[in-house]
């Protein structure tokens, strides 16, 4: 009974305190006064009971909150950065953690008015605290980035080969960048380790308190600024597609060089470094880490990709091939990096863009070859080389293709990506090369018809054909086109050779045929005299003209001469011999009078052929 009575008494006392006390501390004071009256109204007894059944256990909550309030308010009002002192920052975070714990413990009773009021107060304190944490977070990020920026000059393009290993200026806190720029296998700590830990501790609390968006926003803004600064230090300019389009070739070449360097540094060093930083600061909150990372890198990544895109969209002048291939190869080599750095859900778009642009660069390379095809097709037929020598377009195309084939592997890759249909014996690159060769040869054939003299026409084709085969034979181009192709073309050159011989010399050869059925000795003599006369004239004419023609290839020249000699000399010798043996040729004239050339003379003249006149020789 007594127990019950006491309970009732205590309950009444509590009730009085609750109703009379306009706030918790007043109620608390009232209870304090009661406790001085009567031992039964001890503080402990008044505080006992189920939480929520009376107001007094709430006071434990209130007391806790009061103590936290005074701590937190002190920090929040401080002018100095809290994080400049590790003891302060730890205490601040402890207070916050305690606040969060208390809130969590009591949250199931939020419906009860006194508890609810306490929780609202707690939330208010949390908001104030978080506000301050956010500011500290921002200033810590900015300070950290500043100190790195100062030491960041090692990544400038000017300081390529600088070896910093023996540099005494660096102490433990500063960023160790000891290797030259060309080695991309570099790990940078974007911020000092202690700073990163601090940031993580702050981020943890902010994310738990519902301040995640602000935290991520502050983080991204700060890091993005730093990253874009770093990228611009690499010399990469912000260029529109039109601006790239309008650049001179030299300017563009330089810009491409800078881009290659920047892209490598960004993808291999800067972005991974930012990713690591994100992962550390937002450790345990992967979604926030992913989102923040994307925000940080998006702008720079887009800038890098935009330039590559501009190159891909640009003009297709064949001289651009090698630089466009450089950009293609860089994108290809960085694809792995793109895949790994932009692997999360938010960066998927960036990764896909990179792939699209890489493919577009491949298209550009194929487009350049198409432009080359156009160039060949459109080369005017009228521009024939005097003397039937090597045409500039032959030289240009063959040297171009030889140079291009040095990048054979890359080109194979480029052409595999096209929509062409491969055959089982040849790659698409081979098909492209064969096609270009066909176009070149067709064009040359058209050009050859400009020459009125069919012999010159064949000589021209022989010269150019020979050059083509020489340039194909020893090199990647030959491997691409294959032995068969080479054999076929050599055969073609031989064919031109025989055609030349036939068209220029057959008639003369015909004159040298000794016809034994001529009527009588006299008749034969007369015929032979006429034939010899004709031969002399034709031979003179032909030699005069053909000496001005050019055969550039020494070996070919020799072959031609030898072949001609073999053709003419025996026949001529035979003819002359018969002629001389005829004896009397009427009117007492000597055979020798009609014989202008001895066999050696013929040979000598043949050896003068194809030297080219001073005007024809190029």
């Amino acid at each position, binding site marked *: 009974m007594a127990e019950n009575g006491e309970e009732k008494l205590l309950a009444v006392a509590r009730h009085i305190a609750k109703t009379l006390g306009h706030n918790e501390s007043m109620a608390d004071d009232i209870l304090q006064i009661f406790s001085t009256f009567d031992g039964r109204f001890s503080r402990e007894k008044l505080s006992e009971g189920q939480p929520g059944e009376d107001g007094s256990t709430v006071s434990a909550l209130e007391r806790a909150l009061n103590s936290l309030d005074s701590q937190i308010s002190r920090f929040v009002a401080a002018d100095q950065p809290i994080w400049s002192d590790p003891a302060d920052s730890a205490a601040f975070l402890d207070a916050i953690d305690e606040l969060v714990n208390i809130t969590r413990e009591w949250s199931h009773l939020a419906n009860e008015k006194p508890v609810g009021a306490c929780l609202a107060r707690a939330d208010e304190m949390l908001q104030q605290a978080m506000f301050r944490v956010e500011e500290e977070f921002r200033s810590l990020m900015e300070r950290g980035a500043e100190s790195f920026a100062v030491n960041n000059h090692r990544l400038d393009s000017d300081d390529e080969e600088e070896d910093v290993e023996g540099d005494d200026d660096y102490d433990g806190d500063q960023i160790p960048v000891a290797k030259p720029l060309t080695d991309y296998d570099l790990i940078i700590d974007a911020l000092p380790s202690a700073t990163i830990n601090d940031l993580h501790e702050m981020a943890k609390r902010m994310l738990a308190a519902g301040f995640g968006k602000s935290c991520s926003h502050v983080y991204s803004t700060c890091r993005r600024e730093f990253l874009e600064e770093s990228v611009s230090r690499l010399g990469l300019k912000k260029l529109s597609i039109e601006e790239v389009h309008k650049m001179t070739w030299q300017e563009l070449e330089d810009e491409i060089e800078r881009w290659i360097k920047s892209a490598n540094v960004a993808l291999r060093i800067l972005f991974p470094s930012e990713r690591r930083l994100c992962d550390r600061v937002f450790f345990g909150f992967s979604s926030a880490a992913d989102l923040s990372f994307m925000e940080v890198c998006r702008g720079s990544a887009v800038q890098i990709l935009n330039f590559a895109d501009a190159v891909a969209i640009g003009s297709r002048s064949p001289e651009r091939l090698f630089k466009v291939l450089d950009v293609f190869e860089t994108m290809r080599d960085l694809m792995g990096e793109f895949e790994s750095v932009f692997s999360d859900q938010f960066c998927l778009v960036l990764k896909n863009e990179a792939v699209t642009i890489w493919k577009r660069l491949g298209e550009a390379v194929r*487009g350049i070859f198409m432009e080359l095809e156009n160039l060949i097709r459109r080369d005017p037929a009228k521009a024939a080389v005097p003397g039937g020598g090597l045409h500039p377009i032959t030289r240009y195309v063959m040297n171009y293709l030889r140079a291009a084939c040095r990048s054979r592997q890359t080109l194979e890759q480029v052409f595999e990506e096209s*929509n062409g249909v491969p055959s089982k014996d040849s790659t698409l690159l081979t098909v492209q090369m064969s096609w270009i060769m066909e176009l070149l040869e067709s064009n040359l054939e058209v050009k050859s018809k400009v020459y009125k003299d069919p012999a010159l026409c064949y000589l021209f084709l022989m010269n150019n054909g020979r050059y083509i085969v020489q340039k194909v034979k020893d090199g990647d181009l030959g491997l691409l086109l294959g032995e068969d192709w080479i054999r076929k073309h050599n055969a073609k050159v031989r064919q031109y050779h025989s055609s030349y011989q036939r068209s220029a010399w057959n008639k003369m050869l015909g004159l040298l045929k000794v016809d034994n059925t001529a009527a009588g000795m006299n008749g034969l003599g007369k015929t032979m005299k006429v034939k010899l006369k004709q031969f002399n004239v034709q031979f003179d004419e032909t030699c005069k003209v053909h000496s001005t023609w050019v055969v550039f290839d020494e070996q070919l020249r020799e072959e031609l001469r030898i072949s001609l000699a073999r053709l003419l000399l025996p026949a001529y010798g035979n003819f002359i011999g018969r002629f001389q043996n005829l004896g009397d040729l009427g009117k007492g004239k000597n055979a020798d009078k009609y014989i202008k050339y001895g066999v050696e003379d013929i040979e000598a003249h043949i050896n003068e052929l194809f030297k080219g006149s001073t005007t024809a020789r190029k």
Partner: protein
Amino acid sequence: MPATEFQGSFGRSLLTLRRDQTDSNHHHHQPQNTMEAELDSFQRQVAEKFIDLNASAGDNNLLSLDWISKLLDSFLCCQEEFRAIIFNHRSQISAPPMDRILSDYFERSIKALDVCNAIRDGIEQIRQWQKLSDIVISALDSHRPVGEGQLRRAKKALIDLAIGMLDEKDHSSTTSLAHRNRSFGRAKDNHSHHRSFGHFRSLSWSVSRSWSASKQLQALANNLNTPKPNDVAASNGLAVPVYTMTSVLLFVMWVLVAAIPCQDRGLQVNFSVPRHYQWAVPVMSLHDKIVEESKRRDRKNCCGLLKEIDRIEKSSKVMNELVDSIQFPLSEEKESEVKQRVVELVEVHEGLKKGLDPFERKVREVFHRIVRSRTESLDSLC
């Protein structure tokens, strides 16, 4: 020998394009009236698309994300038709005057590519505002009654938002805005506002500081004249669809620049189409409506005419004023007012959230198709 079977190009995707258009009826010697019909059909299609757009521009829908998306869809359709026409008559495009006319078109389309890239930046800008409005919402939209701390947080985000949405040219007013709000929050907040203003502006553009959207538009429109009768005759009428497509391209880019924030945004472009073109009236009608919109007092200095931007600006302004007017303790009346405004803000925010990503994808699609069209034509010149 495989090479002899090649007709130059490596089987472009054009060959898969519109096989039904180039079936056995349309051989190399296309009778004149078929071509005429084809070109006429194109003109009609363009006109129909823009009549539709006019119709759907009512009810305050003009320049909304939805409407602009429709505009981009229409552009893509017209572009496909155009592409088909060029493909069908590719034998003519390498000869004068079509070679010159088409090359001019593709030069202009490169300028359009840069506009697309700038618009992408602008969309990112809008996303930043979205983030801020998200913070405002999360600060105020809780089940607990609004506390001082939450209000402060909302206020900060609202100020950042207001500063962020200022037109670039209004540098002078930002400092006064920041000073006006000095009363709420300590001096430290002010400093951070200045910094965040810098953050919003200096970083986002992927183009150099000298790039100008308005100059780009002017260059796009430069010397855009209706085709000369000589050219029309010499090109068998092909000069007309090129002129049409160029005009459509210019209009679409102009609308994008009008709607989305970008560097040196200006709408002064000489854009007029002679009335005898079927699509001239609906296009010019839209043009005039948009110009009118840009001249409205409350939108004169905005950073983009996009309807959603207007809504965010207005509801955040209202919210800002409301927050300013709040005294603690919060009356129930005030509290419900806050909740109501939050609901409005949420509506705008959600609309933007849903629509922005697809819109960006569409702009990107436009970019890729313009590139593809150009590449294919260059390839066809073989």
